[in-house]
Every structure is written in C-alpha cells, then in structure tokens.
C-alpha cells in the first residue's frame, strides 16, 4: 500500500466522521447563517448597488477565526484523549500520511460549507452582471484561507488532548495571524516601528494576502503564501506528533 492509498483511507474515514456527529450540521447551519447575516445586514449587500460579492467575502476571515478551530480542534486532540494515537503510532509507516489525510478531510469539509453558499453567486448574477472570474478567485482565496487556518489548527490540536484548549489556541493564533495585517494595527505601528518591520508584519498577515486575492486578482505571491503556511504547519504537525508520541 502506498502513501497515496493510506492518505485516501484516512481521508475517507475522517470526512465521513464529520457527518456521523452533529458537528457537520451545526457547523454548516452556523456558517451559512452568519455568512448571510454579515453580507446582507452588516456588509450592505443590497445598498451598495454593485453586482459583486465583496460584502460576502470580506467577513470570511472573521468567521473562520472561530468556526475553523471548531473543525480542527478534534483532529489530533481527540486521538490523544481516546488513546487511539497509541495504536496509530505503531502502524508500520510514518505519520505524514495520517496528517495529510486528516487535514485534507477537514479542508474538504470546510470547502463543502463554502460551496453551499453558491446561492449568493446565483443571486448576484441574477441581479446584475458580476465579474465571474473575480468571484471565483475570491472563493479560491476563502478556501485557501480556511486551509491555512486548518493547518495551523491541526498543528495546535496535536499539542494537547483537550479539545477546548485546542480550540482556544487556534482561535487566538488565527486572530493574531489576521490582526497583524489589520489596517488599524499597521497604522498604529507606522507611527514608531521601522518600515521594514511594518512591511514584514503586513506581508506575513493572512488578511493582507486574502484581501489581495479577494479583489479578484491571482497574485502568485498570495497563492504561494497560503501554500507555504499550509505546508509549514503540516510539517510542524508531523514533528509535534512524533515529539509527543509517547504522552
């Protein structure tokens, strides 16, 4: 059995497990409800008189700050709590296939949630003539942002057997990752911090790269940023599990 097949076995088991608990239904309902509420009530979807989905996508990072940790918190903390990690660690292969399989399942689940917002796209298409390419890129940006947060959450979940701790750690880490690119924070820093520090902080922020893509332009640097964040945290995830395997 090769690595791809093992990853696929883990992916299928994990993806299915979301739908065997109330988690899937709760997550999907809350995500769809809040995404709609923010877009229509706070984002002023109708008042703007523009046929785009900017009011919809601009709130995704803040929604993900507490919804993505709800998905990622159980990835490894649950294995630690139940003790199944012990059996998993004696399987005759490395842990990388398991990390990737679990991450992909979580990512696929959040992508399903995102895909269920397609009525927004239909609505805006019916009301006007939006730039479909830009909307597609914004969806891609949202999926990449969710992936980056999930990779971070998966890593943090591997450090504890307590799902609540995993949730809080992930929510705070995602918040910090966003906040470092928040205009108010950057403006505050510009007053006294060296320019290089401010620019470095802005470029390391998920928000900066997300907003850049949300405008509908695929910049290689933005795509590369999310890809590298995902890979970096998955690598850390593998090391963390190996490091704490006997706990």
């Amino acid at each position, binding site marked *: 059995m090769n690595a791809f097949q093992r990853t696929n076995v883990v992916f299928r088991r994990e993806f299915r497990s979301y739908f065997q608990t109330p988690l899937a239904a709760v997550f999907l309902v809350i995500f769809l409800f809040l995404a709609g509420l923010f877009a229509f009530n706070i984002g002023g979807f109708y008042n703007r008189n523009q046929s785009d989905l900017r009011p919809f996508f601009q709130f995704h990072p803040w929604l993900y700050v507490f919804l993505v940790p709800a998905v990622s918190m159980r990835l490894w903390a649950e294995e630690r709590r139940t003790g199944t990690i012990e059996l998993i660690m004696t399987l*005759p292969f490395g842990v990388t296939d398991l990390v990737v399989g679990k991450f992909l399942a979580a990512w696929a689940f959040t992508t399903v949630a995102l895909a269920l917002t397609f009525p927004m796209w239909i609505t805006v298409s019916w009301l006007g003539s939006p730039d479909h390419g830009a909307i597609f890129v914004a969806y891609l940006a949202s999926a990449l942002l969710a992936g980056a947060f999930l990779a971070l959450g998966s890593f943090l979940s591997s450090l504890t057997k307590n799902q609540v701790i995993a949730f809080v750690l992930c929510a705070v880490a995602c918040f910090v990752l966003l906040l470092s690119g928040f205009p108010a924070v950057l403006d505050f820093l510009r007053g006294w911090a060296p320019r290089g520090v401010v620019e470095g902080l802005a470029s390391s922020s998920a928000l900066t790269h997300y907003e850049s893509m949300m405008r509908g332009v695929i910049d290689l640097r933005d795509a590369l940023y999310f890809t590298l964040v995902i890979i970096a945290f998955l690598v850390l995830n593998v090391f963390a599990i190996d490091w704490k395997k006997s706990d």
Partner: protein
Amino acid sequence: MLALRDIRKSFGAVVAVDGLSFEVGAGEVFGLLGPNGAGKSTAIAIATGLLTPDSGSVDLLGLGSPSSPAVRMHLGLAPQEITLYDDLTARENLTFFARLYGVRDIAARVDELLTLVELSERAKDRVSTFSGGMKRRLNLAAALVHDPQLLLLDEPTAGVDPQSRNRILELVRGLAASGKSIVYTTHYMEEAAKICDRVGIVDRGRMLEVGSVAELLARHGKDTDLETVFLTLTGRSLRE
C-alpha cells in the same frame, strides 16, 4: 522473537527502566508483572518503538528495532486504553485498520476476526454501544488484524466481566499455540499463573525475577502462590 537487552530509560530525574532485559520466544506467553509505576508500560512503549531507550537495544525477529516501520509490521499492540473509534461499527473499525496495514481480502479477514472474538452478531453496531468486555475483545481483534508475529497486550482484561475475561484468556492461549509470541501485562496473578509460560516480575524499572511460574514457586517455597511471591519481591507498601 523479541529481545530487550539492558534497556535504560529516564524521564528527567525519574528512572523508569533501569537495565531491563528479557526475551520472548516463538509461541511463548511472557507475563510482565509489576506494581503501578514499575516500568511495565514504559517497557511496552519501548518494545513498540513508541519510546526510544536511552541505552540498550530492542530486537524484533532479528530484524532490528521497532522504530523502523518495516519492523513494526510484525507487531500488534492492544494498549491499556481502548483504542477504537466509538463512532464506527465493529466492522468499520477493523476494516479501517486492515486498510491502513494493507491487508489483502479485508472482508474475509474482518469476518474471521469478528468470529474469533465472538462479535459477528454485533458487527454492524457502533462501538459506543458496546460493553467494556466487548470493547476489549474488539481491541484485541484490532491488534491482530494484520496477523502479527508478536502481540503486546497491556492489561487486556482490565475492567471486563468473567465471561469476557475467560474468552480473552482462551484466545491468548490459542494464539500462542498457533506460534505467536505474546507479551502480557496484568495485575491479576491468577491470570498470569493460568496462561503465561514464563513471567518476569518488575519493580522500579528492574527485572527482579524471571522464570516459569513453577520455577518461581519452587524458589520461594512449595506452599506459596504467585501473588505471595510477587508481594515478597515488590514489597507490601502501597504505590502511587
């Protein structure tokens, strides 16, 4: 089959295993007995490759250390905790692990194991609905799914009813009769006396005595039993 030689392992200032050595032959049930904190679980973790010893060596089937994935293919572990997915059925649990091990003809193997542990009729039920004894039996089946040569059973009868315990003991003897080597840890002395070919009594990370139950009893006087020998060697003071 399995050889631990002069194993030492410390966690900070705490010495968990201090020069522990033992060997387990083909078809042998080796009982690893000791009070809480004696170093049994650490020894098992080292034997499975979960922990790396500070010094000493582990050899499985002459292939080397179980830290190598290829060597781990030959060992099966039933840990002290139930390591099953509650949200899956008995069949799904075994199928999941069989797939990861790359077992051929998974359906037949899973059927065989469910029959072996007498859970065929509950194959489609979720593990969350199982009693402690049923979970223990399924846990044992999960350790056997890839037909390993060496089985490490860490207190496999903890918290089960006499019927399930009896079935598990019969299974262990049957597996040994088929040529499998088994390391068996337990706190129940009568269990060890019943099924182990040899036992090793461990305390404070050291092997205090090793031999067949008959040999141990002969060394400590004819009219004694294994529990008395155990208490004589490890002391009667309470452990944390």
